[in-house]
């Protein structure tokens, strides 16, 4: 097969933008969608995951329901719910840009997975840790803040790394609601230029580079927060 890359420097018809700059702006949108959704997912997921380990049953139940709800509906359907259904049910949301809606869709979907990891992380700590915190007179909130969560987060960094890589991949569904990110670029540029293989190769490469970078970044964080003397630490 003969590859031909020249078209990337051609403009897309508006006289100023080239396919290359479109590609990079699409990459920017992918990073923006995934990045914002990740922040949301991390915040909500940590809260929900923590609540799931509470001794108060109704709080834990509510948090479990959250996880089940967002885990058992396909991401694309959730995106459609945010884009088509919610604004028409709640009129004030009609003017919210679709970028924000997609961030919420992807963020809440991912929050259920983050919550699952955080819960598992907290529950993997010895039960005595909670007792030790409380026996010193720390309140429940302080026990979580100073004793349980710092260890739990260290433990869940590896699974969170794969969730962070997943969110990059999952952000591709934003194409379905016309966010001009990498996948939508791939589809449109393929159509316009008929150089599908080159376009897809470029897009795929950017996805892989992004995922690798996240992987390295998280490994760096993991190393920075490593506890001496603890599994894998320098004794």
């Amino acid at each position, binding site marked *: *097969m003969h590859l031909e890359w020249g078209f990337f420097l051609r403009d897309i018809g508006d006289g100023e933008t080239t396919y290359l700059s479109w590609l990079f702006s699409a990459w920017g949108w992918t990073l923006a969608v995934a990045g914002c959704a990740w922040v949301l997912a991390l915040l909500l997921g940590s809260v929900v995951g923590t609540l799931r380990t509470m001794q108060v049953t109704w709080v834990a139940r509510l948090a479990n329901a959250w996880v*089940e*709800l967002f*885990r*058992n*509906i*396909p*991401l*694309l*359907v*959730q995106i*459609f*719910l945010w884009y*088509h*259904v919610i604004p*028409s*049910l*709640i*009129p004030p949301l009609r003017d919210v840009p679709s970028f924000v809606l997609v961030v919420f869709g992807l963020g809440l979907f991912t929050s259920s997975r983050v919550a699952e990891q955080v819960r598992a992380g907290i529950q993997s700590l010895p039960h005595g840790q909670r007792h030790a915190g409380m026996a010193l007179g720390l309140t429940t909130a302080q026990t979580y803040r100073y004793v349980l969560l710092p260890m739990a987060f260290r433990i869940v960094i590896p699974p969170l790394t794969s969730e962070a*890589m997943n969110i*990059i*991949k*999952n*952000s*591709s*569904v934003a*194409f*379905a609601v016309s966010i001009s990110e990498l*996948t939508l670029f*791939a*589809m449109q540029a*393929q159509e316009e230029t008929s150089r*599908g*293989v080159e376009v*897809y190769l470029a*897009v*795929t490469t950017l*996805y*892989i580079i992004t*995922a*690798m970078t996240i992987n390295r970044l998280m490994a760096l964080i993991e190393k920075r927060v490593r506890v001496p003397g603890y599994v894998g630490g320098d004794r």
Partner: protein
Amino acid sequence: MIGNLDLSFFNWELVSNFLAKGFYFSIQLTLIAMAGGIVFGTALALCRLSGRPWLALPAATYVNTMRSIPLVMVILWFFLLIPLLIGRSMGAELSAIITFTLFEAAYYSEIMRAGIQSVARGQVYAGYALGLTYGQTMRLIVLPQAFRNMLPVLLTQTIILFQDTSLVYAIGAYDLLKGFEVAGKNFNRPVEAYLLAAVVYFVICFSLSSVVKKLQTRIAIIR
């Protein structure tokens, strides 16, 4: 507002005209990709664990590549490449079936690899000690145990697969979600259609995952 929702268009006619076809395809796609994916995935796992670089390396590359690309992109890739390779165009549905089988194989292979590694090393020695060959040991002793240990995880992956089938939207294949969308357009009730789609997917996935959870406790007891 919520009061404006009109679900009266949901009747038997709608189900048989729009949804049945899509539902049938989603199920078909899930089952074929699961069966094919597990078989091919197990083969990949065996290659990776074979200790022979010329088998392990290509298998690892295949699995890692598939796992680092968004499924939507993989769907688009195959939809683009298959016609280039076989010289004629192929329907979106058939293309989706091939794509999902090959894509899911990568994920199933990771599960099977963990499953095989979870079987105690002593089992393999016991097989050899009885005079079984490598192939026989794998087929008769290791794989059945790996499969049983990993059954809940394999089924959970299948539920994810079922959810992912909705992504054939990217190439316009007619699946369950498409059925709801077309129905919504036809009756001019898109909001209700998407809402119903969410409910239907939720009920299916939630019930299946409850079954898997039960199975998990059962298996834990047997072991």
